[in-house]
Each structure stands twice: as C-alpha cells, then as structure tokens.
C-alpha cells in the first residue's frame, strides 16, 4: 500500500513513523485515512502488537493531544468524559475533563467496558460533544478515536453490536510484524521513549485544512452509481442478513476520497474504493451463516459488478 502513496506530506509522516513502528506501514496509512476522513478507527487485534504505540506516535507526529482509556467492566461513563468536582476554595463545581477530551483517544479493549460506558463513548464519537451535569462540552477538533478489541477473549466481555460498530469508519487489524521488522524490534527493545520524542510534521490547522481539501475531491457519478450498485447488492444478497447502511456508503466515499488524495489525485477511481472496502465494509454486515468469511462474500459481490469504465 505504501508504494501507492504519492502525497509527500503523508509520505513524510509515514517514513517518520516507520522508524519506531517497524512493519506497521499499512496500519499507519489506514489510521491516517481514518483521521483525515474524520472517522474513527477500530483495531481488532491481539495484545502486544503495538496498538498503543501507533496511537501515541500518531498523536506526536500530528502534534495532537493524546488520551487513553483502559476499559474494564467497572469503568463509568464519567471516568471517560470527566466529571464536576466541588472546589472548596471557590465553592463551585469545577469540570475536570476526562481522557475523552483529547484529539486522539485510545480506547483500549472497548469490549470490556459495560454497554452503559460503551454507549456514552459512542455517543461522544458521533456527536463530538459530551454532556456532564447538564453542561455540554465540545470535543476538540480534530477528534479521533482509536478503539481496540481483543478477538479471542470472550469471557467477561460485552461485544459491540453491529449497529455500534457502524460508528467506526474503519476496522483494521495490525497483524504480526514481518520477521525482519520483528527482529529489529527485538534488537532495539521497546522504543516507547523514542515515540514520545517524535517531531510533529503537521499541526491541527493543517490537518483541518487537509480534511477540508479531501472533501472537495471529485467523485464522478459513474463511481457513485457503482458504489450504490454494490450497496444494493449487499442488501439483496441471500448470504447477508444485514446489508450496508447509508452511513456505510458515506464512509466508503469519504475513505475513497482520502485515499485518492493520498495517492496524489484530486479525483476518485474505482480502485480507491475497492481498496477501502475491506476495511470499511466487513464490520457493518451480518452474515446469515458462517460458511464463508465476510471478506469472501464481499469480494464475490464485487466481482459481479462491472467496474467503470
């Protein structure tokens, strides 16, 4: 994927991050796509593969504030949003912002939190604001959530329902690093220190500007029609119980636009869409039976639609 990136600012970020996140280029790119598409990212992976490192590194490189929530089943909504504390000196309640009020928020093991906390989090993600004691606080911009979830541990967890998963623009997995990269990691040891010393390459304003620019990317009707065909087929397919929502369609177009910009174009081609679909679509559909993986079903649907031109 990295060889397709042509936007030099993005390339600079990637090469910069690569130094301390060996073998995670794809994850870096996808996270960046998610950030610049103004969406949130769900990483489903095993512990110890560098999810936290990725989040920290991103916040440093983009010069954004970073918050981290470690979910447990006794975590309360106020633990993440923050709460009002009585100040003895002023005699007033003072708002102590929670970790959610940062630009980049890492929500570790989101499926361990209770549904109550989960929905508070997801609401904040959707509305970009939190309400504490009847007072509404705007979340900072840009606001980006990286949630992680452990696919193996089921015991004592509250898996997110598909309707909640729909709120995440993309779902990725980092995967094990290649042998070379892993060897390098082992040689150097944990590089958390290095992460905190990373230089910023972009600042907030630049990010927001770039986000705006991405929204202007030209998307031909030919491709929109093609995406709509795809969405409709997922709704009609006999193997699929729940097809794609309109929000899913929006997510497809946004990510495709961002990817197109990353690749140095100001218009979208079908390949942009195709390459984003595996990260945008699977977590939003429910299969009737589990004979096939979601990826297989999706790719078989794609093969039935003629791609323009």
């Amino acid at each position: 994927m990295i060889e397709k990136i042509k936007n030099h600012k993005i390339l600079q970020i990637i090469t910069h991050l690569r130094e301390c996140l060996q073998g995670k280029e794809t994850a870096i790119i996808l996270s960046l796509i998610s950030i610049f598409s103004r969406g949130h990212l769900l990483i489903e992976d095993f512990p110890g593969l560098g999810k936290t490192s990725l989040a920290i590194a991103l916040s440093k490189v983009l010069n954004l504030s970073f918050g981290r929530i470690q979910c447990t089943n006794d975590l309360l909504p106020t633990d993440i949003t923050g709460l009002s504390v009585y100040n003895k000196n002023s005699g007033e309640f003072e708002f102590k912002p929670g970790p959610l009020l940062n630009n980049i928020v890492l929500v570790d093991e989101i499926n361990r939190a209770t549904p109550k906390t989960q929905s508070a989090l997801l609401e904040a993600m959707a509305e970009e604001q939190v309400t504490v004691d009847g007072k509404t606080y705007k979340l900072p911009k840009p606001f980006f959530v990286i949630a992680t979830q452990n696919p193996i541990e089921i015991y004592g967890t509250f898996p997110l329902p598909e309707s909640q998963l729909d709120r995440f623009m993309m779902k990725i997995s980092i995967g094990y690093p290649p042998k070379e990269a892993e060897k390098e990691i082992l040689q150097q040891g944990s590089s958390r220190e290095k992460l905190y010393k990373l230089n910023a390459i972009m600042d907030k304003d630049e990010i927001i500007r770039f986000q705006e620019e991405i929204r202007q990317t030209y998307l031909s009707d030919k491709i929109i029609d093609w995406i709509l065909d795809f969405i409709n087929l997922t709704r009609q397919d006999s193997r699929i119980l729940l097809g794609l929502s309109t929000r899913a369609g929006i997510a497809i177009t946004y990510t495709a636009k961002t990817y197109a910009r990353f690749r140095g174009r100001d218009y979208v081609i079908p390949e942009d869409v195709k390459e984003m679909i595996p990260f945008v679509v699977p977590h939003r559909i429910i299969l009737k039976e589990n004979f096939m993986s979601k990826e297989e079903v999706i790719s078989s649907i794609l093969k039935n639609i003629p791609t323009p031109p």
Partner: protein
Amino acid sequence: MHLQSITLNKVKDYIFFLSILIAAISFTSIFPHISPYVNFLFVLILIFSIFLHLKNVFLPEWVLNIISIILIVFPFLGLSSNDILMPSIESLTLILSVRFLGKKTSREYFQIYLLSMLLLGGSSLFDISWMFLIRLILMLILTIFAMLLLTYVKEVGNDFIGLERLLNLMNFAIFIAIVSIPLSAFFFIILPRTPVPLVDIGLSKAKTGFSSTVNLGSIREIEEDNNIVMRVKMKQIPEKELYWRVITFDTFDGRVWQKKLFEMSKSSIYGEKISYTIILEPLTEKYLPTLDYPVSVSTKNLIYEYPGTYKIAFSLEKTMKYDAVSFINYKLTESNPSSIYLKIPPNITEKIKTLTNNITSQASNKKEIAESIIRFLSNYQYSLKDLPVGENSIEEFLFNKKKGNCEYFATAMVLMLRIKDIPARVVGGFRGGTYNSFGGYYIIRASDAHLWVEAWIDGQWLRFDPSGKISRKTENIVFYFIDYIWNSIVLDYDIRSQLRLVKSIKIPKFEFNIKLFLIPFLVLVLYGSFKFYRYMKKTREPLNRFFSIMKKYGFERRGYQGLEEFVSMISDKNLREKAENFVKLYEEIYFKDKKINKEDYKKLKVLLDILNESRKS
C-alpha cells in the same frame, strides 16, 4: 473471440479482393467497347494474380515495369495514328491488371484505384448512361473503404482488427461517398462540361434498328429503346419541322412494308435551307438519318436512294459524323410518281374501302380527303401495348382495337389514300428530339422512332402525320425515370431542361416526388445518428484500442476489474509503466467527467502507440 478479431493476413486478403472488385467494376464499364483480346488478357492476368496472391508469390518490380512498357506500346502498333483513344484505354486496362501481379504495398493499391477510376472515366467516352453513376458510387464506396483499411493497417501495424471496426470503416466509407455526391453535384454545376461524349468513337453492340422492311409492330421495340441514336448539332427549329428522315417504304403486302422502288424520278425542291452536323450511333444499319427533306450529305461512300434517303456502302459499326443540308417548310414537286404508290394489297377488304369512302364523302378535293382521314384517325388512341396482330391487323386496328402505334396510323392512312387513288408512301425515321441549348444540339433517341405519310397531291409530295398530334403515353417505370433524370440533368443539363424536369415530375409522376424528398431526409437522419454514434464511440475508442493491444500481450481485462487493477497484473515492469501511463491519463479524463478533447485524444493515441510499439520491438 475468433469472430471478433481478424488477423493482419486476413485484412490483406480483404484489401486484395476489394481491389480486384474495384478493378472489375471499372472493367465492366469498359469491356463492351474494347477489343476481345484485351478483355481476355485482362481476365487472365487477374486470375493469375489471384493465384499468385494465394501462393504468396510476387513478380519483381522490374519485370512488371517492362511488361507495363510493352503493354503501353503494343496496342499502338498496327493502328492508325488518328485513333489514339482506344489503344490508350486498352493499355490502361492491361496496366491495371498487371499492377495486381507484383508485391502490393499501399502505394501499389493506390495506383490500382487511380487506374480503375481513370478507366471508369474513360468509359464515359463511349457511353454515358445512368449505369455510369451506379458504377461510380459503388467504386467510390469500395475505394474509400479499401483506402481506410490500408491506412488503418498502416497506422496500427501488426494489429488485429475487430469485425466491428471493419464494419465501422465500411460505414464510414459509405458515409464519405454519400456526402461527396452532393459535393460533386455542386462541381457539376460550376464546372464546364462537354456537350457530347468527347470523342466520337466506340464499337457499340448492335441494337434494334431500322431495316429495309418494317413488320407491323416491329417499330414498337425501337420506341421502347431509350438509347441515343444521334446528336445533331444545329440551331433550334420549330418543333413541327423536326422530322428525321431515314427510309421510305412503298409496297405493303398486308403485313410487311417494303421498299421496292429504286429508280430516280425527277423532282424539284425549294424551301428554307438548314445545314447541320450529325453524330450518329450505329443503330440505323446503313441508313443515314437526315432532317426532312435532305438535299445533300457529305461523307465517303455515300449512296443516294430515291426518295430523299441516304445510305453508306457498308454497315455502320461505330459512331460516325457527317454534315448535311436540308430544306424545311419545303415544296417538293414531282411530275409523275410511280404507279407503285397506288398499289393496294389483295387482302384489303371491302369493309376498309367502305369506311374510307364514308370518311371522305364530304371531301371535295384530294387535300380535303387527306385531311378528313387525319381527322378520322385522330380519334384513335396511341399505344405501344396490346397492338393489333394477325393476318389482317389493319382491319383489327381500324374496327376493333382502335389503338396502335405510328405504324398502324401511317399504314391505315396510306392505304386509305391509295383507295382514294392518291399516291402515298410511308416514311420511317424519327420525330422530335430534345434540344440541348447549352451544347446547341438535338438528342434523338431510339424511342423517337416514328413513321409518317407522304402523299402526292397536286403535283407535290406533302407530309401527313396521322399519329403525330396524339400524345404518347409514357410508361411509369423506374428505369425510365432514372434514365430520364440522368439524361435531363446530366446529359442535357441546362436550366430549361431542369425546369422541364420539375414540371414533368409534378404532373404525372407525383409519387416519385415524395420519394425524392424522402431520400435526402433519410440520408440526413442516417448522418445524424451516425454522428451521434461516432461521438459516443469516440470516448470509448482509445480504451477499446488499449484493451485490444493488451489482449495481444495476453492480458484480458475482466468486467469487474478496474483499469489500474487490471494493469497491476502485468509483471513486466516496463510494459506496466507504459500501460499505467495510458490508464492514468484516461482515468483523469473519464473519472473527472471531462469531455475528451482533441489534445487529450492525441496524447492518448501517442501513449497507445508507445505501448504498441514496445511489443513490436
């Protein structure tokens, strides 16, 4: 898939046979006019060249050149120097055929097309009929098609050509040909024309003609023949004086008119003198038509035949030209006509005699007798169909059918005059003619053939035309119509004849009028839809070519594959880059919903050429 693409060799075969066809079309226009040896040789060489083509063997260029030079010189040997055209056309024909023997690049093919066109043009020197137009259109379409194919092959090189594209080229060729026809019509109006075929040469096949006997009903064949018999260069004279005298008949046996009287009899003539030049096609056997009544004809081997007809010693084989002088509004006096002019065939029944007496009972002198006969016959219908036949066809004509052509009218009148003791004879020839004021000549066709009557009254031979005033009905046959249009617009072009044409369309042939409007309308609609199709095609065309090139590399795009996805399958880095260059440019136009402009089109083409070229090297 096999149907979809045609290999280069196939295309070369197509071009070769297309060229054979083109040469054959021009050959059909020329072959009746040139010597049979040349015809035979032409066909032989053509067949040999097909054989060579199939065997893929070609004669070297220098051999062809030597043969060509020999062929240029050969027809000129042994022929008189004043007849240059015929050998030229013959050698042209042979050179055309020889061109097929060599190795053929587009240069040779273009030579073939040029020679074919020249040959077709040459054929117009012998014969201009509407068939020329058909041949011309056919040749235009085929030649343009062949040239497009050649250019295509040259452009694309070692490329496959789709059946669809082949048909496309064909459509385009037809389109160009059809569009070019109105253009040539425009040139036709502004460019000067020669009024007559340039040279009066040509061996024409024998056609229906005059002979020294006339069977009743035989003139009919001539009257249905629209061939031009002669062109007469002269000033325009009143329509009623346009009688072209060819032959006279004196003896009737009830069925056949013959000429038996040959002795000269003393006669004198005076009138208005007219001199003119006749260009005669070989249709009238030995007889030379002249304007009634001729006084002199100047040509070699001339024989004068009483009364007032001329012939030559040998049968006419090619067009001839002669000057003549005639009198119109003449007075022809003769003292004592032969008694042969009073002979009545034995099978003339009393019925006819009684009828004659009834008709002429009121007449007091000979002239009134003739006039009353004319009056009586004018109630009869002129017709070319369903003519009276049989032993007593005249009786059948007079009493039953009451319709016939000029033969019946003239015969009936002569017989009636003879019954009333007035010497009379039948004159055969032509009546009328179309005057071409642009070229200053009359065109007389076989269909103008006519018989009329001369009667000796008060010492003078007077002309009577019993069927002359009765209008002839023309048959509504498409053939005649096309011929008429061709003759009126192309051959007799002048503004008056065009006006006449417009008038003639309006009254009797209204249904043609609608069709005439329909054709341009259809052409317009076709043109419009073709344009639209081209436009739709144009945006996809570079892509189609891209796919066809990639197919030759062994990469076939599937419907679900995006272009870049498709290109990324290519393992050869060099090739992939070239393909990517094209795909990127095309995508930028296509997915930005831009219209493909000329510059983009060119750029895309260059990229495709690069892509294609790397395959060759």
